């Protein structure tokens, strides 16, 4: 069992939460320079039967408030592990990691991030509305506010009218949107998205990427996004972190300064192609040893 939180801590955390926090980006714009994630010298070694596996080696990474940061790299490069370290689902072997100025563990207890997994992981016995309200139930929101927030966020992801459906009655893309509404429901400042659209076809993916950008722009949240699609990373991000495996490390950090409200058309521009090329060459240099 991985649940480390004792009941009193969880209750305190629920009290510390401010459920009425507005869902707009306005209050956050003031401290836009603050660091949402600050990782220094983070390493993580897994002990497996075949010996130690160095999943992360000396990661230094700063993510500012309001950033959209993508981790890109081949499988096994530690991008998901790094995200799980930020989420306090894994503990680093060495190094320190701060999330919103406190340790990752404290940030988790304060419910400061929403995690979206590769699979929607909606509980099959709950309807869509009850899935979206689940974290709110756990965090002790009053019933009326749970319902109000559920309706608001289902509308935001274009799922109004599907409240009473069970997950299996929705398509994969709709399920993933419901899981995004669930992660947004308690209005965390930080969204951690682990290849959320990896299992979807390209058309649905493009569409959801545009919706995600609009949502990020409207809410002013900080997003950390794991992907292995170069166009997806370049299109979405303000910062691309290129990673390489064995050991998992950062080999390049690329800034993308397209306007926040961007459309799919920017994929045809020379700037876009230039950045995509730099990501590609970064990935290639990280890979060169096994060719």
């Amino acid at each position, binding site marked *: 069992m*991985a649940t480390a939180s*004792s*009941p009193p801590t969880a209750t305190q955390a629920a009290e510390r939460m401010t459920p009425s926090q507005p869902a707009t980006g306005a209050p956050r714009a003031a401290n836009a320079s603050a660091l949402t994630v600050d990782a220094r010298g983070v390493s993580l070694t897994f002990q497996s039967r075949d010996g130690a596996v160095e999943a992360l080696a000396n990661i230094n990474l700063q993510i500012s408030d309001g950033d959209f940061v993508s981790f890109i790299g081949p499988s096994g490069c530690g991008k998901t592990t790094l995200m799980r370290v930020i989420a306090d689902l894994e503990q680093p072997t060495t190094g320190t990691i701060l999330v919103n100025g406190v340790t990752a563990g404290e940030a*988790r207890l304060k419910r400061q991030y929403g995690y979206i997994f590769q699979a929607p992981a909606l509980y099959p*016995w709950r309807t869509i509305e009850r899935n979206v309200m689940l974290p709110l139930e756990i965090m002790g929101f009053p019933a009326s506010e749970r319902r109000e927030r559920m309706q608001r966020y289902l509308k935001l992801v274009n799922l109004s009218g599907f409240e009473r459906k069970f997950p299996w009655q929705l398509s994969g893309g709709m399920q993933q949107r419901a899981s995004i509404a669930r992660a947004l429901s308690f209005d965390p400042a930080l969204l951690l998205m682990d290849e959320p659209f990896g299992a979807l076809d390209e058309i649905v993916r493009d569409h959801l990427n545009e919706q995600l950008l609009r949502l990020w722009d409207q809410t002013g949240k900080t997003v950390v996004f794991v992907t292995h699609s170069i166009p997806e990373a370049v299109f979405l991000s303000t910062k691309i972190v290129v990673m390489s495996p064995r050991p998992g490390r950062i080999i390049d950090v690329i800034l993308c300064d397209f306007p926040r409200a961007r459309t799919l058309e920017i994929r045809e521009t020379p700037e876009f192609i230039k950045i995509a090329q730099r990501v590609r060459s970064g990935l290639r240099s990280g890979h060169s040893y096994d060719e």
Partner: protein
Amino acid sequence: MTSSAVPWPRANWRPTAWVGEHTPIFAVVAVLFVLWYLAAFFMNAPLVRDAFERNEVKYTFGELVAGTMEAKRPVVPAPHQVAVELYDSIFGYPLNSPRNLAYHAWVTLSATAVGFAIGVIFGIVLAILIVHLRTLEKSLLPWIICSQMVPILAIAPIIIVVFGAIGIRGLFPKSIISAYLCFFPVTIGMVKGLTSPDPIELDLMRTWSANKLQVLWKLRWPASIPYLFASLKVSVTISLVGAIVAELPTGAQAGLGARLLSGSYYGQTVQIWAALVCAAVIATVLIAIIDAIAKLTAQRMGALT
């Protein structure tokens, strides 16, 4: 996604279609009855033949067959004899008479119900403890498995005597024996069910910093419901067997077990068979009830039935 919403009654519903669907069931039942009649004939024939010969009566084959079907104390009673005995012993006496089979069935059924309830609650609590305390799994599980290897016929008199000594008699000690047998499948099924959520579903709970009680109530418990009902189906029949067995070695005055025992004392094979058929019918009904509850629950939990 199979046919989740079949409107009932279906528009094209016809009795002939219903019979067609159930032909295999009828066929099996028919074969069983034929076998039963054959067994009744061959097992009882020597008995009837002896009786004829002892009285030096000439008999035809037809008379032999008729004799095997109507024997007073047959080795294997014919199905119709059991049916007549069932009818007579249920409707021939007032409901509270010890001669009424329904009265005995009720005595056993109430011990079964109490034992089942105790066993299920105990089994679930045990599973929850085992899932949450890893040390318990190592220290308790071997004992639980051991408990099921001891023959219940050896344990039952001990339990009855111990409870009798502290003044508890009647239904409760029988229920304890029934519970002793039926908690086991519940524990095993629920340990499996409570640990069935995916790592990703547990991770989600962790990202919301849910406490253990919330993880249990909102994730582990609903995820284990299908396992629970599978276990309940096994356990309900076991608890009936437990209640009957508890009546055997203790000289109980009432209950299906007592009926079986008195039947064998007095060589009343028809009575024994009637009690057995009665127990089988009760078990079938109990399973059907659990099945119906399971279906309803599954529907409410969004299963694609």
